[in-house]
């Protein structure tokens, strides 16, 4: 019951947060130079027609009137229509979210699959060659620019050695996407037993996910290493060893403690990545959030930018709420 109350309170707190965000983004998009009417209409349109477009999009209303209209539409679930493409922002965001969610999740799984064993090994072999190699790998992950890594790996693995798929985005253009259920191709293709689409989706995602995962692996690995070193040096670990526990048992107990801060770090990284990665999406033609918002900002597409920021804020809040609930399960000291 207490937990239910806590969740309800957190969800209710989302309302003022989102209201604040809508107001700030709404104000900011109006301050940024660039007249959306000029972009919608183009240069070869009469002033009368421009005025008509301004009226049609309610851009001639006072700021507060526009804002109230915007919030009213939001309450009806309407995020507006892109000024540039004429496509519903909501539809576009949900489509893009599926693409970004799929890429980010696989990238994070790859990052964790690399970071946890490497961090663990580095802690166990502290200051040894494994530790050194892990540090070099971690530094490389942080310091190698994503666009360079993406292009080089694409050149080598796709063009030269032909072991990676062509950078066509989520699926090969000669393969039909799976029937839409969740929008996540890997899930939809499994559920509908569409193995051709599944194979193509796996081939399409592993390289961009690896590039993205590699870039976020380093901070996770460093925290695992640090957490494990501290846990291995702690009094309970010493006591376990003194009692004659097997090394694997000591490591298992220490890892549980070391992974708690990792959970926080993963949530931060996940929340950040769900906003989309412009560079990885650009290089691998991935139709995700990053590319969408980048193009929207470049073209002063107000509804699209506002919709995205609202989405990103909600994602962050939801991810952190889930993190807090996860802590409840992982850490017996946490009480609500």
């Amino acid at each position: 019951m207490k937990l239910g109350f806590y969740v309800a309170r957190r969800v209710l707190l989302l309302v003022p947060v989102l209201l604040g965000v809508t107001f700030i983004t709404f104000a900011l998009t109006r301050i940024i130079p660039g007249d959306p009417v000029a972009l919608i209409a183009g240069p070869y349109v009469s002033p009368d027609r421009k005025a008509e477009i301004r009226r049609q999009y309610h851009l001639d209303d006072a700021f507060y009137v526009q804002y109230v209209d915007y919030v009213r539409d939001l309450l009806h679930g309407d995020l507006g229509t892109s000024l540039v493409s004429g496509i519903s922002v909501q539809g576009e965001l949900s489509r893009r979210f599926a693409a970004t969610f799929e890429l980010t999740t696989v990238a994070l799984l790859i990052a964790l699959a690399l970071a946890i064993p490497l961090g663990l090994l580095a802690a166990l072999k502290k200051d040894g060659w494994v530790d050194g190699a892990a540090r070099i790998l971690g530094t490389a992950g942080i310091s190698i620019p994503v666009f360079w890594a993406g292009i080089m790996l694409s050149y080598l693995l796709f063009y030269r050695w032909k072991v990676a798929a062509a950078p066509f985005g989520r699926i090969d253009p000669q393969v039909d996407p799976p029937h839409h259920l969740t929008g996540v191709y890997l899930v939809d293709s499994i559920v509908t037993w569409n193995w051709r689409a599944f194979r193509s989706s796996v081939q399409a995602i592993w390289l961009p996910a690896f590039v993205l995962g590699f870039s976020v692996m380093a901070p996770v690995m460093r925290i695992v290493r640090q957490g494990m070193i501290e846990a291995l040096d702690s009094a309970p670990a010493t006591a376990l060893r003194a009692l004659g526990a097997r090394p694997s048992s000591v490591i298992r107990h220490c890892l549980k403690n070391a992974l708690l801060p990792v959970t926080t770090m993963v949530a931060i990284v996940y929340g950040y990545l769900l906003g989309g990665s412009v560079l990885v999406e650009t290089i691998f033609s991935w139709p995700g959030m990053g590319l969408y918002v980048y193009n929207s900002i470049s073209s002063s597409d107000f509804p699209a930018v506002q919709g995205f920021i609202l989405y990103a804020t909600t994602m962050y809040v939801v991810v952190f709420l889930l993190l807090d609930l996860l802590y409840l399960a992982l850490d017996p000291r946490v009480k609500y």
Partner: protein
Amino acid sequence: MSNEERSEGAAPEVWEGPLDRRELLVKTAAIGSALAASGGLASQVAAAPRTIARAGRSSARKTLFVANYGDMQNLDPHTSSADTVTGDMLTNLYAIPVTFQVPARLGPSRIRYADPNKFRGQAVKSWKWNRNRTEITFTVRKGLQFPDGTPLDAEAIKFSLDRCLGVAAVGSFLFGMIGVTKPDQFQLLDSRRFKIVLPKPSSLLLGNMAMFYGSALLNPKIVKNHATRSDPHAQGWLKTHAAESGWYTLDKWDVGSGWTLAANREFWEPTRTKEIRFQVIPDAQQRELLIRSGRVDLALGIPLKDVARLRRDANLKVLSIPSRAVAWAGFDVTAKPFDNRLVRQAILYAIPYDTIMREVMRGQGVQLKSPIPKGTPNSSFRFWHYNTDYEKAKTLLRRAGYPSGFSAQLDIPAGNPVDEQTAAWIQQGLQKAGIDVSINKQPAAAFTGQLQAKKHKFWFSSQSWISINNDPLYHLYWLFAQDCCTYGKYQNPKVVSLVNRFVNRPLTDPARIRAVNEAQRIIVNDAPWVFLFQPPWIAVMRKNVKGFAYYSTDQFIRYADLVKT
């Protein structure tokens, strides 16, 4: 005189277009039986159609893959701002009444070049002017249909032309400049004939109509089905859907990823490739890898710097065609110090043109030396006298009252390497003349917004202008005599008067030619622009892609011409 007559000299008053299918059969049969007696020739006549049919069948199974740099935007042909990607699609999705003739002979780079001043009917079969050239009557081809079977007749064409005026966008401006401003100037005579009534003769009509902006033919049944009281022209629906009439229909559009065009079975002209799949590949280097690997057949949006490298690949055909687009740096001629002609001339003398052509254009394209680009009739570079000369620039600055130079800000849109490199060379050149330039990179939308609001004082963007009507006064009309596009507020009364007086006169009129030359002389001398370059049009295709034709007027690709062998 109309455009088609101008270009063909003593062309007949009535233009007869290609034959209808039925007429073709009847006439071929007649010719065939007449030639049958002469033996050999008959077999050649009969052989030709079989060859075409075979090629058509074998290519039908082949899909053309295209790597494009962006997605489509507003798909409404009458209101679209027509970025290159969308313009390409609209050209292929919508038929127009008249289009350009494409001679069969190959030109440079062994491709065909559409003649920008000779027209042929696409939806219409023929046209005829009245005696005083204020009315033109079009006869529509027999039996045309939209993909859903709706008749594409004179009534449907009038519907589209009326809509073009109704939405009051680019197309209505094009009609407006020749005096067509009201729907009753499009007169329906019967199901196959319609008439356009002009207030005075104009040589620009066919050229202005040969593009989707003003003349795309939309399926009236579909448009009416999606019209609402608040949106009587179905503009909202047509932004993301098509009411096609052209070579292709929009088969599938996965927004952000790509789209597929399928051949329109009802279209009356041959479509050599039955399906085209476009993929959005935002990164130029990935587009290069895809074309080199053979995963796509055509790659667009290839940067200038990559052309030389790609030309070394024996499997590729790299097209870098000199265009009629003009790229210039503009001044606000009403703002200090650019209101002083001597200052503007000094700046023109301080630009390192050769370096820009070598380092930025990579030896491609053409240096622009007149407001009218090379390739447009009556373009003349003989008035140009601004070869780089820093000492002369300093002298002119002293005469203008700026002996120590001055500081200025050059606005450019961010994110385009050609803009950034050109701006850097301009900065370096002007520094040598004593002018301190700071480069102000602006987000693309902000830059465009300020450009259209005429708020830049000194700016450059390589997003160049191309005149869709290959007519020198059409070109000057928009860039030097109309409020819409005189971004630097330069309107010399003499130039405006010459343009307005002669713009609708025939291209070959000696008085008009003299007016064009005089306007060029005045503009070059007034230096309202830093005349920079005519960038090339670039595309890379696999060697086995044949049939390409270049249309200098709009530079959009007619995919129906292409075939994979």
